[in-house]
């Protein structure tokens, strides 16, 4: 399977409607791959800097192998949340891939500490949570901690690649409220939603950031 996607293709999403909140969560992009003679796009992993945080050395080895195979050169590793936070400040990674259950402080706390809008560091870096937790309520908790993408183990090369592709090509605006700072948790507009409107201000005022793919299209 080719991992590039073509310029004039749809960038469609699979939406998972959260029945509790009426919002859509954890979109996974679906790319239609290009036919002959089309303009292609690919991710230059060579320019991406990763921070891997997992207390399990075997999983770190697998992640490192996958990222290097994708073409990444820079992948820093931490075995607990505290070390990862230090490395995050020091190396300023483009993408963080973290486990959930870890000693000292866990991946959830790491995400919360990165997502501090007043911090000196970069609070916007995409965070991919790769975890053995496989319950939907965990997905919601991770989302509410500011995690950008959730990937349940067992890990696959395709699953990891898709999450990376999504954070690179389809960034979401950030939302700041009294209790939340992180990527927009609404991934689509659900006209069938019945329930209280949690945001005040009118939907027309909500600004959307165009996806990188759309930006790239407009520059062609």
């Amino acid at each position, binding site marked *: 399977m*080719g*991992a*590039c996607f073509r*310029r004039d293709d749809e960038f469609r999403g699979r939406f998972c409607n959260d029945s509790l909140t009426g919002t859509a969560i954890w979109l996974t992009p679906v790319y239609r791959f*290009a036919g002959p*003679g*089309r303009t*292609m*796009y*690919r*991710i*230059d*992993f060579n320019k*991406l800097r990763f921070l891997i945080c997992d*207390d*399990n050395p*075997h*999983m770190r*080895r*697998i992640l490192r*192998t*996958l990222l*290097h*195979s*994708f073409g990444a050169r820079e992948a820093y590793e931490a075995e607990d949340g505290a070390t990862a936070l230090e490395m995050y400040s020091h190396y300023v990674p*483009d993408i963080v891939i973290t486990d959930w*259950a870890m*000693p000292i402080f866990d991946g959830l706390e790491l995400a919360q500490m990165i997502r501090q809008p007043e911090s000196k560091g970069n609070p*916007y870096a*995409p965070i991919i949570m790769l975890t*053995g*937790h*496989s*319950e*939907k*309520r965990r997905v919601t908790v991770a989302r509410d901690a500011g995690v950008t993408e959730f990937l*349940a*183990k*067992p890990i696959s*090369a395709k699953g990891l*690649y898709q999450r990376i592709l999504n954070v690179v090509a389809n*960034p979401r*605006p*950030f939302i*700041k*409220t*009294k209790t939340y700072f992180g990527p*927009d948790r609404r991934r689509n507009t659900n006209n069938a939603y019945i329930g209280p409107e949690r*945001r*005040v*201000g*009118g939907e027309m*005022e*909500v*600004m959307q*950031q165009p996806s*990188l*793919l759309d*930006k*790239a299209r407009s520059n062609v």
Partner: protein
Amino acid sequence: MAKEKPGTIQVKSFADHHVITQPNPLRKVLLRVPESDLDDPVGRAEKALAGLSGEFKNWMTIEADRLSAAHEAILRDGFTIDNREELFRAAHDIKGDAATFGFPSAGAAAESLCRIIEHAPDLDQVPSELITHHINAIQAIVRERTKLDTATMASALSKQLRGVADEFLLKVNRDRPEHLEAILAPSIVPAE
């Protein structure tokens, strides 16, 4: 809204929230390439993962031994906070890693053990055989993998353990609706 200079953070304020559009620093990594330069990073990564597979059995043995050591500490000192955490982490790692390493049934048994640790109201009240059977099953699945008929047997064993564990958890959590809901909720990971 007035046009902002490209690359600056744009903030739109509402009554109870702000919408922040930050410049995308990852834009630089999206490249236009001629079709002839196409490559297949996913396929390449799968091959690299296959190249590691010779080490998976050894890694799985290490993970299973770590689980047994955590269990021995509990038999010796009881369910201290540290002992409980270590048993959960060891089981949780197997739950996440085992399918990748080629031991999906060990992962299923470890998931069942994780559910017991997470949802039992009092671990000291959990029948010790229930935990011991999970540990022994995981060890057996890892040790006996090379035998011809073990895949089916391992799958049946892990399913049976899960059934017994779920029966226990449903019984002890009958007055704890939040745990019951979590126990009965389907996994987001497709079953093997």
